[in-house]
């Protein structure tokens, strides 16, 4: 039997059933409440660790299961269905962007200190790249780290950092050589409580409200040289780029889960809701709009799976990944908007879930590199 578009096998689908049960029983019932509180319980990290979800692609030596990226892809899709982009983002940041670079480039000692406890859910991680004046333009970052003896002195600030408020460590992009452009970048692991490192306010957001997003400040913050990722200066740029593909795929996959969830919700809604003596599903205009949504969703899914297949096959599929991220997240926004419209007045009410999908979806074409950046990458890949 062909499972999951010739991409996923029977075991992946069995794992999907487990994740779906967890999402249905342990996340969905509280999604609204967490969004309202603008926070989800920290225990979710330990719960996810217990279920083995935080170490799916990491070696057993650090407490992972080494099951592979396709299992994580299943997890990301199903998390997209939980109805809270913030929960999916906070948990997702832990196993995609915060620990990804540690696993790929960290020294053995750094993996033991940060990766292993993150897989166990004991330490929450964050990735700190974006600054008030630079994001995808990583060569333009301004946070500096000046070597002094066996420490780096870090100065600068970061913003929009997912998990920033409660992170126990931040994998921080810094300039170790401000004159060297992209070759002067390094990643430095900064622990919570290091003198000179302070967390600013928790930022208020349009969507993804259950996730904590913070500004981080560094003022003469002394970080041991041992925390330099990989132990070699100037490798920050390739280290950041090395994990961007997975980050972008993860956003595309989350959008797929979210679209699937919205389509299920809207199908149920138009069958139940009646107007002018018949169910909404009886009106051709409604039927065709939903058919168009399903078609757009399927196209986004095929493109994302294409990029995913190339990625897990070991290709550096930068154009396809950028296309998938752009198409999936933008389609998700449109579908959210259409679904909200088909809800009529109810769509505008906070008590219906669709407004949250609509707000959460809007982050997709912005986070992890905007659609405009994706388009520019694609253009570059075309040799333009």
């Amino acid at each position, binding site marked *: 039997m062909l499972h999951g578009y010739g991409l996923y096998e*029977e*075991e992946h689908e*069995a*794992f999907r*059933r*487990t994740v779906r*049960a*967890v999402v249905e029983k342990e996340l969905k019932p509280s999604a609204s409440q967490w969004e309202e509180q603008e926070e989800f319980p920290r225990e979710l990290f330990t719960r996810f660790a217990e*279920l*083995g979800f935080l170490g*799916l692609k990491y070696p057993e030596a650090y407490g992972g*299961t080494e*099951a592979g990226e396709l*299992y994580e892809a299943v997890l990301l899709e199903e998390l997209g269905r939980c109805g809270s982009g913030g929960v999916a983002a906070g948990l997702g940041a832990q196993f995609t962007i915060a620990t990804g670079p540690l696993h790929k480039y960290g020294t053995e000692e750094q993996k033991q200190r940060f990766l292993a406890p993150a897989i166990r859910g004991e330490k929450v991680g964050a990735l700190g790249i974006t600054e008030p004046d630079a994001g995808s333009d990583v060569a333009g970052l301004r946070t500096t780290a000046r070597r002094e003896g066996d420490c780096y002195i870090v100065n600068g600030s970061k913003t929009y950092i997912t998990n920033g408020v409660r992170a126990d460590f931040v994998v921080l992009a810094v300039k170790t050589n401000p004159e060297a452009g992209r070759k002067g970048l390094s990643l430095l692991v900064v622990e919570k409580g290091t003198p000179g490192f302070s967390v600013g306010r928790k930022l208020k957001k349009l969507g993804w409200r259950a996730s904590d997003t913070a500004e981080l400040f560094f003022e003469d913050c002394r970080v041991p040289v041992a925390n330099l990722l990989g132990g070699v200066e100037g490798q920050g740029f390739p280290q950041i780029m090395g994990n961007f593909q997975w980050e972008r795929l993860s956003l595309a996959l989350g959008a797929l889960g979210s679209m699937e969830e919205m389509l299920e919700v809207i199908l149920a809604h138009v069958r139940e809701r009646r107007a002018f003596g018949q169910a909404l599903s009886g009106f051709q205009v409604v039927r065709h709009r939903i058919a168009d949504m399903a078609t757009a969703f399927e196209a986004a899914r095929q493109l994302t799976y294409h990029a995913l297949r190339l990625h897990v096959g070991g290709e550096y599929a930068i154009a396809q990944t950028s296309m998938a991220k752009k198409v999936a997240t933008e389609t998700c926004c449109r579908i959210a908007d259409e679904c909200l419209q088909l809800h009529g007045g109810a769509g505008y009410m906070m008590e219906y879930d669709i407004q949250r999908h609509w707000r959460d979806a809007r982050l997709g074409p912005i986070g992890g590199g905007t659609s405009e950046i994706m388009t520019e990458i694609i253009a570059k890949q075309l040799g333009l």
Partner: protein
Amino acid sequence: MVDVPVSCRSREYPLFKEKDVKILVTAKRVEDPESKIKVKPDGSDIVREGLKYKINPFDEIGVEEGLRLVAKHGGEVVVVSIGGKEVQEQLRHALAMGAQRAVWVNHTGALDQMGVAGLLQKVVEKEKPDLVVLGKQSIDDDQNQVGQYLAEYLGWGQATFASKVESLESEQEKSKTPALQVGADGKTVQVVREVDNGLATLECQLPAVVTTDLRLNLPRYASLPGIMKAKSKPIEELTPEKLGVDVTPKVQVVKLASPPERKAGIKVPDVATLVDKLRNEAKVV
């Protein structure tokens, strides 16, 4: 020179457990309780297109209880299912939860409760478990008969609707201790069961048949390592012919019909009106 053979056994010598128990559990494939069931216009069957299937939730509770008993006492959980090739999905689910082996009775035609119990009887005689744990009923036709028939066919004791004394939210539940208590001599099992006016505790001689109620335990999720291991666990294929059971149904389904739609309720202004309506309209008090 003589080579001294090295044992292939693990270096750790297994500790003696209180008593090894062999437990047979069932995994019926049923319609997903979340799906909406529609009856075909001619009443011959339900509409099966697009339906999702899963393990009968009561059976899943049985699998969980079997696993807890084996974790405590040592032994083996064997899972059995009857049906076409598709029931392997439910068997793999139970194997992924932790059952050691599976038995698949390959049969695609209609079956009634006597047919199912007859097949299970032969599987039990072949496997010789100490205990059979199955759901009190399956959520598709809700008959609640197979466990009782099976005990009768085997001539074994039975305890139906096994439940638990403490809450499913309790520390004891969270530490995954079994609710069924096997006696120290390994010859009896204590079962708390739900009855109309509360809970009753029974003691049964082993071997015995136990059926599970909803409040016996909270089944675990199939973990990823469990799913991986399930791949290589054996599924033995049997057929009614091999087992020598005539499964020609004695019960025939004549027609299926949806229950009448519930009428909308009404709101009453006060208790007096409610009592009046219950007494004079509904005539229930």
